[in-house]
């Protein structure tokens, strides 16, 4: 499995597992909770749909003799991973502060889940921006 597919699979798995944990551990029957659950499921479905679309496109390109990944796609992946690492450090620091000072009175398990979800979305967001917006031009010194 090459290119974006392995990270996409890992992200979908992490989001699915954390989502199940969040909605199973603290089931609230309020309308807000149901809406949040529905939005989460829709986001997961969109992610899976995106994966299928990408796979279909890549398989079509493979038939034409084009590679699935190359130096630019690896460059984008590395940069997205690097951005995610540093942004995640800040996110985890904020979550640690919230936990230590008991600011929002959130269970530790939820803070872990929110941290994981945030890291996944930071990766997806940075990968999308880099992939479609460019931002891969290295300035000459």
């Amino acid at each position, binding site marked *: 499995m090459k290119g974006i597919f392995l990270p996409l699979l890992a992200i979908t798995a992490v989001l699915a597992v954390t989502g199940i944990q969040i909605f199973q551990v603290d089931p609230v029957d309020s309308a807000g909770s149901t809406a949040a659950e529905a939005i989460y499921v829709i986001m997961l479905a969109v992610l899976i749909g995106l994966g299928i679309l990408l796979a279909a496109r890549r398989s079509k390109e493979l038939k034409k003799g084009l*590679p699935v990944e*190359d130096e630019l796609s690896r460059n984008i992946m590395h940069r997205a991973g690097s951005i995610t690492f540093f942004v995640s450090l800040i996110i985890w620091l904020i979550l640690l502060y919230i936990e230590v000072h008991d600011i929002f009175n959130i269970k530790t398990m939820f803070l872990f889940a929110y941290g994981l979800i945030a890291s996944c979305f930071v990766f997806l967001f940075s990968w999308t921006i880099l992939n479609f917006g*460019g931002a891969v031009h290295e300035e000459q010194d």
Partner: protein
Amino acid sequence: MKNRIKELRARFDLTQQDLAIKVNVRRETIVFLEKGKYNPSLKLAYDIARVFDMAIEEVFLFEE
């Protein structure tokens, strides 16, 4: 760094996909290169120059 890929591609009657297949990269990479949004590795620059039977510095224009 500017390049003449688009101009040379037209002269050699190659589509972005044709060039991508010849140098074994995705078509998106050729698009990014033509837009000047990506600086290729030395190997890719060499491969592209070889497709047009030119020297690297004739395809990629380095600026001070």
